[in-house]
């Protein structure tokens, strides 16, 4: 416990000084200090921080970011998928947009997934709001969120074939949808 408190204060100083440019963001530094493998890559661009997290650590990293006093990312703004295209490997991205209602800072976490193994653990255990966001990503991209409590299609009908926001899904679909 004695070690943790100076760490939190240190982190706070870094957050207040708001370093821009080449130095790693305080969020990435905090994640790396907690567990070196949580940060696979870090991008600072256009005033936003993106941290690429290996899939197996996403729940632990989210939990840490939410509960760490200096970070306090208690609000999950958004989860959305992205398809880089069928020829790309890894093909899918899942972006988590985190926000803190007390410190007002934002952070994007990114998980990269291969097409043949598009599974990622759910973060509904960390923020309950992830439920519908993950259902939407599953519906439109076919990314499976393991251990999700209610992983059903949300926008498209249950018997819909394919995943509409994938790049290889045609804009007008394959055939007119019929309710029969």
């Amino acid at each position, binding site marked *: 416990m004695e070690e943790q408190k100076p760490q939190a204060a240190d982190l706070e100083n870094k957050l207040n000084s708001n370093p821009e440019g080449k130095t790693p963001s305080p969020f990435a530094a905090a994640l790396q200090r907690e567990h070196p493998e949580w940060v696979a890559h870090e991008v600072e*661009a256009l005033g936003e921080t*993106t941290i690429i997290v290996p899939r197996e650590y996403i729940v632990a990293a989210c939990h840490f970011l939410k509960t760490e006093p200096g970070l306090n990312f208690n609000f999950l703004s958004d989860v*959305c998928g992205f398809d880089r295209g069928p020829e790309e490997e890894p093909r899918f991205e899942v972006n988590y947009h985190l926000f803190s209602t007390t410190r007002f800072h*934002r952070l994007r976490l990114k998980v990269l997934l291969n097409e043949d193994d598009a599974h990622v653990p759910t973060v509904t255990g960390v*923020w309950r709001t992830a*439920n519908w966001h993950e259902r939407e990503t599953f519906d439109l991209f076919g990314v499976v969120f393991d251990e999700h409590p209610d992983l059903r*299609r949300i*926008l*498209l*009908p249950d018997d819909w074939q394919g995943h509409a926001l994938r790049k290889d899904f045609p804009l007008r679909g394959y055939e007119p949808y019929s309710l029969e």
Partner: protein
Amino acid sequence: MSHVQSPRSKAADIGHWTLDLGLLEMSSVANIPPQFEVVDRPLDTQMTISMGPQHPSTHGVLRLELVLDGEMVVKATPDIGYLHTGMEKLFEYRKYQQGIVITDRMDYLNPLGNNLAYVMAVEKLLELEIPERAQTIRVLTCEMQRIASHLVWLGTHALDIGAMTVFFYAFREREKILNLIEAASGGRLTPSYFRIGGLMMDIPAGFERRVQQFLDEFPKAVKEFHTLVSGNRIFQKRTQGVGVITAEDAIDWGLSGPSLRGSGVALDIRRANPYCGYENYDFEIPTEPDCDVWARYMVRMREMLESHKIVIQALARLKPGPVKADAPKIVLPDREAMKTHMDALIHHFLIVAEGFDVPAGEVYMPIEASKGELGVYVQSTGGPKPARVHFRGPSFVNLSALPHMSHGAMVADIVAIIGSLDIVLGEIDR
């Protein structure tokens, strides 16, 4: 006598078995053993009914699957997607500037907010500087749009609960705002007024005077709404203590905007992550501590007056100047310049025919829309069309908390709770 604690024992708390419990209480007060056995057993007729999608108080085409025990809601499961038109897919097949008209059709009660979030996301990718006058007009029109959006909410929310008159008064005021927006942009419901790099065009002559006239009349109208609704005993009974969600749960469920502020959390993106120069405006963030439908009602009522304050300040700030950024390869030239200058004509042709390249990158642009945090995620891989556009609609997230808020409520309360969340299905289904 046995009083079995069943999983749905909340029914007893809420008064489903009022008669039985009432007898029990009376007899225990008088110290007389009860003459009737108190039974708290689930009805054999637990029933699932479908509310919507064409139910008038579901604000569009929302279907709720309600599991009912008598009149008490055991479980409410929203079923959405009836309005899904694949807008996010459509963005990927359109140039950046063509995406603006799609945003109008998402939250159709707050189209300028959607325009703003989208163009600001693209402007952030392009690292464009927007002139001061354009920023001020954006704030001015967006705040008027927020009032208009809240007026629709007020009218329909009161209508759902049974107060019909308010609707006409609210829509009378809204009409004045829509006329102003039409004067500026040419569109009442789908203005597409903001363009990447500024505005479509400057506000017309005499606009300030008409806004001023609206501003002078509006506080009186709010007073009218209060006399119509706030003092109404029926409205109070229908809303107080209904649909309670604590601040902690509200944050966990991702509630934002007035729905979150009704739980006592003073969070407003205009303050937390200012944009468009909101840090220079003086306004308050109204919050209410009660966490119920009534609290969310009061927050929106107070918020309309805060927006009124911002419009007054924006009007005072309007200084002559350009309303488009100085970026000839991105912003369309003036009509006159196009007809008289060779380079303007070339730029016009290239922007319309080929679009403009946006450097690769990704942004998430959150704004405070009338219903909460509207976030736009745009990813570019270069070229004139976006690779991905995603809208984090506040209605989508706020609706996902409905099952949590409606547990143990009466069927009639569901209508009040949906109204208090102020959802728009166009934004939920996209």
